[in-house]
């Protein structure tokens, strides 16, 4: 990825992170709140797969820090969780490019669940125990959202050229 192609995407990153943050904190009716997709983890996975050299662990960490400030829990928990998610996505990105959509969605579910479990774990250490496993609903809905956003090119561009040749 050349530097000039990265420049306009900075703004895109910021805008998409802002949108994901809004989606993550917009008030939902009580019965719908557990099913709120984990937008931020979804976005991190998406960007890491699509532009791994533009959006990395550090960007994910920053996005998580913003989420911490907005959500008002212990500062650093979403940052930690999203950095780990970004790292896992970076490791898995070549493999994911060859997966079917359903397989990708399953991996996305695992990644989002890792994010929520890590963040929830820190929160419970800080004295807010989670009530049940219902918080994993957010990862499930995020996995269902994955096929909706992935047609807009989910994979590493460097692999696109490789596929055209084969």
């Amino acid at each position: 990825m050349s530097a000039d192609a990265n420049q306009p995407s900075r703004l895109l990153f910021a805008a998409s992170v802002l949108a994901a943050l809004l989606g993550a904190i917009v008030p939902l009716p009580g019965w719908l709140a557990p099913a709120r997709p984990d937008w931020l983890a979804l976005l991190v996975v998406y960007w890491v797969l699509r532009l791994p050299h533009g959006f990395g662990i550090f960007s994910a960490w920053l996005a998580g820090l913003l989420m911490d400030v907005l959500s008002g829990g212990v500062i650093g928990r979403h940052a930690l969780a999203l950095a780990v998610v970004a790292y896992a996505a970076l490791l898995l990105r070549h493999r994911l490019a060859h997966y079917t959509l359903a397989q990708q969605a399953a991996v996305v579910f695992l990644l989002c669940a890792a994010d929520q479990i890590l963040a929830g774990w820190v929160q419970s250490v800080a004295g807010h125990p989670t009530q049940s496993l219902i918080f994993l609903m957010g990862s499930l809905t995020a996995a269902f959202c994955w096929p909706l956003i992935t047609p807009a090119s989910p994979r590493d561009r460097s692999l696109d050229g490789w596929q055209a040749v084969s």
Partner: protein
Amino acid sequence: MRLGALVLASVLLMLADGRFGMLRPARAALADAAVPVHWLSSAPERLFAWLGEVLSTRETLLEENRALRAEALVLRARTQRLAAIAAENVRLRELLNSTAVRDERVLVAEIIGVSPDLSSQTVVIDKGRHHGLRTGQAVIDAYGLFGQVIEVGRLSSRVLLVTDAMHALPAQVVRNGARVIVEGDGRVDALNVDHVAATMDVRPGDLLVSSELEQRFPGGFPVGVVESVVNDPGKPFAVVQARPSAQLDRSRHVLVVTALAPPAAAKPVEPPDAAAEPEPELEPQAPVGVSRP
């Protein structure tokens, strides 16, 4: 190793914030920076409310106006009697040489953000230090006690709801004045009443009101209604559950009790100290007020 550095940084941040509370000033500044985002996130809701107002017909408005006027009349009639009763109360309290009931001033605030976290129950309101808010002030809505202010920015503050797992407050059963401690347990529709002796007279349907014992909450506001009392002979305490009175998941406007005006003809009462750890005055084994969030 980049991951390692970032994980280390996060853990340090979490320790500094959660364990040592070193980030308090930074948090206040960050809360201000977050106001526009909260405002934006609640914009759709506000837009719908506005559209509902603008697009309602004249008949609906007239109808609503009539209903409100009737309600205002009823409430005013009740207040008339309240004034007489309050005066009588003051006289009786003077006769008994007890401290007078404190008067409180309230400030209307709008909820602009709700914690997306399922395990913690906080909301963000659109009033802050600029409007005279301080940590520890009580927040009520039209139906009962809502929570207390835990974090104050310049133009916004964060309120911990009474149902949060970290929240507890002293309360009284209205019917017989029995003192209890009411704790949140993380669900939005349930409160736990702790350390109720098996012989204590608490029944389903009893109203619990806030007590001034801790000098943080104004007294007499409805906290919840007892829903179930389970007496297990094998346990030292009864398991008592209550339903919060305040409409914690529906209210859009809340009232912050900004000042407990000291009573005129009574011995001075210490103002609620926001910085100090709240001292439980009932059962010492139960945490009262809010421990560090």
